[in-house]
């Protein structure tokens, strides 16, 4: 294994899903969207997108109520903190999976 072919002269990273590997494995909490509060969903327009802009792993898609790619979401909670409409809640992974079973 060598890195000879990467062609890079300096160290760099790009804002892309998966730059830091499969970070979904780090997650203990996951973001859950309240669609009734989300500004983009309510207006059904390309607005706000603060969660998309701030997600350090680029795990949120840029569309109203954009789904979160849980393979890469590391559960940092920045989206919940930044959401101006308070539409994202962080829920424990354990609770969420329990809830899913009940559904």
């Amino acid at each position: 294994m060598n890195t000879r072919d990467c062609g890079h002269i300096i160290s760099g990273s790009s804002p892309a899903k998966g730059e830091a590997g499969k970070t979904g494995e780090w997650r203990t909490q996951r973001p859950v969207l309240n669609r009734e509060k989300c500004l983009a969903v309510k207006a059904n327009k390309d607005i706000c997108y603060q969660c998309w802009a701030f997600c350090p792993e680029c795990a949120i898609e840029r569309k109203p109520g954009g789904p979160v790619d849980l393979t890469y979401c590391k559960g940092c909670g920045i989206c919940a903190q930044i959401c101006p409409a308070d539409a994202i809640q962080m829920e424990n992974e354990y609770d969420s999976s329990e809830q899913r079973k009940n559904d």
Partner: protein
Amino acid sequence: MTVLNNEKTISIYNNSSNPKAYPPGKHVLTGNQSAAIGAFLCGVQVIAAYPITPQSPVVEELSKFVEDGELSAEFVPVESEHSAMGVCIGASIAGARVFTATSANGLAYMCEQLHWASGSRLPIVMGCVNRAMAAPWSVLNDQQDSMSQRDAGWIQLFCRDNQEIIDTVIQAYRIAEKVYLPVMVCYDGYILSHTVMPLEVPDENKVKKFLPPYIPHTPIDINNPVNINPVTLGEPRYNANGVLCHGYMEHKYLHHKALRDSLNIIEEVDSEYKDTFGRSAGGLFSLYKTDDAEVVIVCAGSLSKMNILVVDMLREQNIPIGLVSLRSYRPFPNQKLSAALKNKKLILTIDKSLSYGYQGPICIDVKSCLFEAGISSIVISFIAGLGGRDIKPYEIAETAYDYWNKFLNNELNSENIYESQWINCKY
């Protein structure tokens, strides 16, 4: 990260001629003026520097060029040397040709940013006007400042006179932009920086031809955003595209390799410069009367010009002496230097700096390069001219004469060999 197309490069050389006051031809100028005009001729676009004795006149001259509208560059006054290099790093990443200059404690204050600049592989050219490091406070010349930054990953070129300063600044951009490494153009404070001497100012059109536009290795592109120098772990990692990227150690290997490869580039650029402008600035090192020499002086900077006189006077006393003027201290031309020092019986290195607790830095490197080549000449470390102590040619000549005779009479003792010898220290 993609390589920038030619049409995307920022057009440089906004200035269309030499500075009004310095048309091509002979002038009588200080070393600081020489460095400033060199930067002007290279069409620098961003200058950020903080004044410090004896560097200040370089920046004064450049700011005047900018103020008079002769040089369309961005002159950024900063609040410290640390910030100066920070601005240079930002501007260089953005694709600008940048220049700065500093001395002594300013250079030390810049230390952290020096590593950022070299680690980011940015072709920044900096005038390092050699001055003694405090404490105690001194504004006078020795080479402790740049020698202390030996391991910052920069190319360090030493100039012998004011002509070499302007030539080396021009060459430095060519070298830097070819190997993507920053270059420190070191010249002795006051002895060169504040002393006028005749020199040839090159024609701007010739410089343009010699120095192609700067193409950054990692262009700033809004459609292809990158985070430069993020946390880089020890081990390589796969990026989002599945490409295995260098870890920290691979980057350092590449950095080091670029420095080693620049040995050839420095020589090539100098010989090409000679073809274009008719004079060399000394390549990796230059030799004077070494062919039949049995004893050789090795030193760097203005002292090596003065030692030409010393060699002449010793030759008239029938001492078989020669001189090696080291120009490229980092990268260190170990292989070529040891070849040049082969068959020499006695080597006298003169440092204007000190690796405290051992010997002069040049001496240490000369010894190690001789060892790897299997040459067992006697090397003696001399320390001279610290903190502006005046060095007279006769002092060096007397010392060399003395030690050559000691060598011939087998009188060199372990004190001479294991300890550095201080010239004109009045303790």
